[in-house]
């Protein structure tokens, strides 16, 4: 069942990759604010001139 090791290694690399991203997200402040992002997406600050460029 050598393939198990391959899959475990790949899955671990993925999981560790996700973990490092997670730690980086925490450190970079991506998760500091857990309220305004949800509000922000509701505002579309489009310009009034909704016309095609060219």
């Amino acid at each position: 069942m050598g393939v198990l090791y391959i899959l475990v290694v790949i899955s671990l690399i993925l999981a560790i990759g996700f973990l490092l991203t997670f730690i980086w997200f925490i450190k970079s402040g991506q998760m500091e604010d857990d309220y305004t992002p949800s509000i922000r997406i509701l505002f579309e600050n489009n310009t009034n001139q909704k016309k095609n460029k060219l």
Partner: protein
Amino acid sequence: MSLETFYYDNRIVRNFSFAAVFWGAIGMLVGLIIAIQLYVPDLNLDLPWLTYGRIRALHTNAVIFAFVGNAMFAGVYYSLQRLLKTRMFSDVLSNIHFWGWQFIIVLAAITLPLGITSSKEYAELEWPIDIAITIIWVVFGWNMFGSILKTREKHLYVAIWFYIATFVTVAVLHIVNNLEIPVSLFKSYSVFAGVQDALVQWWYGHNAVAFFLTTPILGLMYYFVPKAANRPVYSYRLSIIHFWALIFLYIWAGPHHLLYTSLPDWAQSLGTVFSIMLIAPSWGGMINGLLTLRGVWDKVREDAVLKFFVVAITAYGMSTFEGPMLSLKNVNAIAHYTDWIPAHVHIGTLGWNGFLIFGMFYWIIPRIYQTKIYSKKLANIHFWIGTLGIIFWALPMYWAGFTQSLMWKEFTADGYLAYGNFLETVTQIIPMYITRSFGGLLYLIGVFIMIFNMRKTVKNADLLSNEAAEAPALVSEDITKSHKGEHWHRWIERRPIQMLVFSLLAILVGTLIELIPTMVIKDNVPTIASVKPYTPLELEGRDLYIREGCNACHSQMIRPFRSETERYGEYSKAGEFVYDHPHLWGSKRTGPDLHRIGKKYTHAWHFNHMYDPTMTSPGSIMPRYQWLFKDDLDVSLTEKKIVAMQKLGVPYDKGFEKEAVQNLQLQAKEIADELKIQLQDPVTEIDENKEIIALIAYMQRLGTDIKKEK
């Protein structure tokens, strides 16, 4: 702080949306055809390329990769630009992505009905198309990460995290599961064999559900549900927990597709444990989606978009509860191989994927066309007819699943199987098959109503191809500032997320090249001495079995239950599959298991059965395979196939490849001679060069090696 003006690309969103609807209608139509074929087998009109085994893969690939795939890209391209306050990174990449993906779909639609398939579920496409998929997927990732780099927002909204996880994981899964040795342009063999191949396949298969049908759709949910409800997501904090918990747990759940098989027990248990844990994040997501609608439930009454979303999220909740339950070994023992599984799957696909996508299109299309939907009433009719369709689809299949499983396991007081003839358990559920196809028809009618409604909506409206928007540029102390004039790799260093992705891919490629050939080949040392490689004729027969998609309806994996060993024979052992590149365990028993079919019947029985199944089994719903009796077996690749197998470690003698065709013809002659005697029919002509002879050779070999030992 200066305000910058930029333009969102709506044309690409429109293109992906229309492509999704177009392919979706075709994919679902094929689904309806195969559903009807289960009770009207003649519907294939005796044409190979219209037969269930071949076009079932066409249905699954079309709805997953063409319908959900295109819809996912439409939603990602729409939301990503707005969340990042930027246009997509490159219009050229967007267009390559779009046309490349459509090209792949066309190739799939041609090759699958022709029987060009690797046989691995949801990864059936042959190796040249696999490579094309990889390239286009990288184009998608490049375009997405390029856009993320151009962001005008400091914060990446949670939907984007889901998109990133989707991109990374699907890339890895796709590459690993499709490692294969090409024999020709249209034929390859999986580098993995037997148990190992099955494990890789379902590690992929489950994660395809997780990272192609779930995470991207969740990303869309986190964007479009709040937008449509005009309410912030119920809890942004919960969405963060939901995301991280989900992606950590999902990767490990695959083995729950292989419970009670020859997979080592500990791997099965690992799959079960992680599957159970998945309830928590999945339900976190469902609750978060539904509670976003708090305070706007009155809108749900009128707004078809929200109605679609509510049912979609509810279906997500139901199937993510059912999934972990099905991963329990005692529940799985009942449900596996039955119609319960398609029922479970279709709650997820018709309900969760389909309805979220329909809702999303009803929301997006009028917006990018600066108009109102042509008919709200028709949208609501679509919703109701679609919902009815799901109910008529799923309920009969649950019923059929329970019924059939109970019949398989029923013993008489004397200890015999109560329904010893498998066919009895099939004819019993035909009314449910009929009802199910009615459900499918309703759902498809709903889609055509949507197409009509969309057509009317866009007819007299103008597409706003480039939608103007304004946002301030990011100020320079941000980590996301632009780095003009700096060395090219600076952006990677400052952007740990990109660095992670690239290093991850680099490590993976290295690992794969290092490990796979050595480990996999060494590992296939036979553990059962009497198990020998297939003869060239059997190997060709096996490739016919793959071409015709027999594994869509027949398993080759007998579980260690008395009800199965009584019916089929000795349970399947891992050591019996070491030369099976790829494995053909199957996942559904529309017909009986075939692992111990070898020598159970005469050649003549198989001959008659394949010519017309109702000759030997009155009432059978298996299609006729008469072209196998007309077409000569193609032996032009036989030598190359043996060489490929040798490369994979299958112990054919050195130089055997040269004698392979001769060996094949000898065995074919032998079988044809035996067949003549058995048939005792001077009228029927037996030609040893026909494909049917090879298929009989393979069938008669199946599961017999182990008997020689005794």
